[in-house]
């Protein structure tokens, strides 16, 4: 909690990534969260294309600290035949509340038809979908506009807000054009002025704080928001107000 504002981290991972010293130790994660007033972190597991394996890991992780973590479901069109069934299980049985997708782990641009059953599922239920977005062709955030137009009841979140200048500009344009597109902030680039750009050009009500925990510590990523040259009211929306509205939590 920061000045009575509930803080929600919209981007977190379960599972280890040892090459980068990424360790999903709940004690370490909670210590980082507590140090800076983060109330809830959203977590997902992207390492298993069947969805089931990672979603079970995420559900167990959340179950140990249900007041501090919220789980998102992951599926992949690399195993397309089981996607909708797994999403149904993850949401209805495991209690996961949104969807994470990672196009670089697939062969398809994020707006190609093979992804559409996922978007139809989210559209039917009014769920949010967070994508990794960046410079690679499959993940270019400009493609989100196509999805947002076709599935207006789903909310599409550009993870990392495109990460660098050109895709970031495309992500902002997409958010300007469609009310169901949001921009999430985590990035190791930490380029000066980016938070200000997102808030000023897309609107504070369309930006979500994220950290990439446990791959990265949530504290410097929150520090980007706190030390940005934006109003306190904008910080409240970015740090948690928007996420609470989007997730209904």
């Amino acid at each position, binding site marked *: *909690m*920061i*000045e009575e*504002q509930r803080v929600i981290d919209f981007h977190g991972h379960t599972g280890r990534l040892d*090459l*980068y*010293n*990424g*360790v999903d*130790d709940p004690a*370490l*994660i909670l*210590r*980082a969260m507590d*140090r*800076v*007033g983060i109330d809830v972190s959203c977590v997902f597991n992207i390492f298993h294309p069947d969805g089931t394996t990672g979603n079970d890991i995420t559900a167990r992780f959340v179950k140990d600290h249900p007041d501090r973590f919220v789980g998102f479901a992951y599926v992949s069109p690399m195993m397309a035949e089981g996607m909708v069934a797994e999403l149904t299980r993850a949401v209805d049985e495991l209690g996961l509340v949104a969807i994470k997708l990672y196009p670089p782990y697939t062969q398809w641009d994020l707006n190609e038809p093979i992804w559409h059953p996922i978007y139809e599922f989210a559209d039917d239920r009014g769920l949010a979908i967070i994508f990794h977005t960046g410079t690679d062709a499959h993940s270019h955030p400009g493609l989100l506009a196509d999805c947002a137009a076709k599935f207006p009841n789903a909310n599409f979140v550009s993870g990392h807000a495109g990460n660098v200048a050109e895709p970031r500009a495309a992500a902002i344009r997409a958010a300007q054009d469609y009310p169901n597109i949001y921009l999430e902030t985590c990035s*190791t*680039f*930490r*380029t*000066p*002025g*980016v*938070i200000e750009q997102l808030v000023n050009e897309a609107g504070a009500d369309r930006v979500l704080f994220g950290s990439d*925990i*446990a*791959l*990265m*510590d949530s*504290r*410097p*990523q*929150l*520090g*980007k928001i*706190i*030390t*940005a*040259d934006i109003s*306190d009211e904008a*910080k*409240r929306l970015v740090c948690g107000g928007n996420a609470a509205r989007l997730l209904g939590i």
Partner: protein
Amino acid sequence: MSIQFTFRPRVPIFDANVRVGDLHYQPSPCRNREQLLAEMDRHGVEKALIYHAQTEEVSPIDGNGFLEEWLEDDRLFPQWSVTPTPDSMAQIEALHEQGRVHNVRLHNARAVGLPFRPWACGPMLSWLSENRIPLWIPLPDADADELAMTLSAFPDLVTVLVGAHYTHALWVRPLMTTLPNAYLELSRIEPLGEVEALCAEYGAERFVYGSWYDRLAMGTMLFYLHHTDLSEAELELICAGNLLRILQGEGRHD
């Protein structure tokens, strides 16, 4: 500790890693010294060690010349760049004769195939070591094996390893163990809990705060460092004390 939407540092801040001026492909958000000082004021930063962007990929010699207009006696201190060529060494030696060299930054020539090996960099490293001039080494341009092997041959040389990213996560501990006179600059240390873990393992006296502005936003790591398990004494060392000691030629630990 109550967290606020505004943040000011609790301890004096001397930033060990600030870039000024334009890259050839990207203008700087700060157009002049006054704008840089205003950005430092906004984040509560008292002093900074600055190098010029042109030294990164264009010319350490010309870039050092462009740095002159950014210097300010009380707050902005020079970090000259150096590479192992006769022209570059002549420039640094001339500045040293004027009493103006208290640290240098490696302009890495690995991009054109010159490795960081004793046969290529030995005379430069010997001169720096003999004159007790600490060397900043950007890790994004470096090779871990070259660093370990070459710097081990110059054990008196104090180095500051700059910009360790999560992609360097497996390098950091072996380098810090192998090189007792190396410091780690913290601008990009983002693995979970790593600041506390590294300080517990090596001691806070082995780390310096740098923002790597304008490559990175200025305030983020300061906010992080002020919200760790470090003591106030450790925080003061990291945010200014260690850097002051290094610049006074007293950075050796062995």
